[in-house]
C-alpha cells in the first residue's frame, strides 16, 4: 500500500452547511463491508456516510458530544457513545434509534459490539465498563 505524501487531496464541495460537522470529529469507523463510514462528533451527532461518494446518509443525535461510533459485526447496527451518559443503538439502513443504554453515572467514552453482535460493552468516566444485551438493551450483571 502506498499513500503518497500530500495525497493530492481534493476537497469535495459539501451540499450544505448542515452536512458539515460543526465541531471536532472524535472518531470514525468503517462498516464491515467498507461501504459506510460512521463518524462521532462534538456537535452532538454521529453521522453515517457513503464511503465511496461522501454522501451523508443519516444523522444520529445525542444530547452531548459523541465520542465513539462503531458498527456491529454484520454492519446492520451502530452503537454510539456520548457525553450525555448514554450509549445508543441505531439501525444502519434507516438511522432509526433502536435502543438507549442508560446506566452509566458519567460520560460514556467508548462502546463496541461483541464478535457475535449479541452484546455491547461500554466504558465510561464513572470508572466502570458495562456489558449489555444488545437486543433487549439491558445491562447484564457481571
Amino acid at each position, binding site marked *: *500500500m502506498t499513500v*503518497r*505524501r500530500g*495525497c493530492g487531496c481534493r476537497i469535495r464541495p459539501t451540499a450544505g452547511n448542515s452536512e458539515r*460537522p460543526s465541531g471536532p470529529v472524535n472518531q470514525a469507523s468503517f462498516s464491515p463491508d*467498507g461501504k459506510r*463510514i460512521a463518524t462521532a462528533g462534538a456537535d452532538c451527532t454521529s453521522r453515517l456516510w457513503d464511503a465511496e461518494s461522501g454522501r*451523508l446518509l443519516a444523522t444520529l443525535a445525542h444530547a452531548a458530544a459523541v465520542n465513539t461510533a462503531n458498527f456491529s459485526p454484520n454492519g446492520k447496527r451502530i452503537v454510539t457513545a456520548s457525553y450525555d451518559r448514554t450509549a445508543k443503538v441505531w439501525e444502519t439502513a434507516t438511522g432509526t434509534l433502536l435502543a438507549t443504554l442508560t446506566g452509566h453515572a458519567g460520560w460514556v467514552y467508548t462502546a463496541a459490539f461483541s464478535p457475535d453482535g449479541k452484546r455491547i460493552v461500554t466504558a465510561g468516566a464513572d470508572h466502570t465498563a458495562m456489558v449489555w444485551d444488545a437486543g433487549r438493551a439491558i445491562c447484564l450483571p457481571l
Partner: protein
Amino acid sequence: MAGHTLMIYAVSFSPDGTHIVTASADKTARVWDSQTGRLLATMTGHSGRVNYVAFSPDGKRIVSVSDDGTARVWMPHPANCRQL
C-alpha cells in the same frame, strides 16, 4: 517510530498487520511499516489535530477525523482522497 512533532492520539494496525497508521496533534496522519518502523507516508490536509484513524476492512483506505470538523478518506491514488 519517530516523526510526529506533537502528541499521537490514535494508532491502528492494517488488517493484514503490515502497516500501522498514527494520528497526531501535528495535523497529520502517518503510515508506517510495522516491521521496520519506516515512515511510508504522511497525510497532510487537516487543519486541526487528528483525533482518530482507522483502516477500512480491506486495508485499502484510511479514514481520519480531526478537530477541523472533517473526516477524510485516504486512498493509494492521490486523486482519490476526499473530504466527507
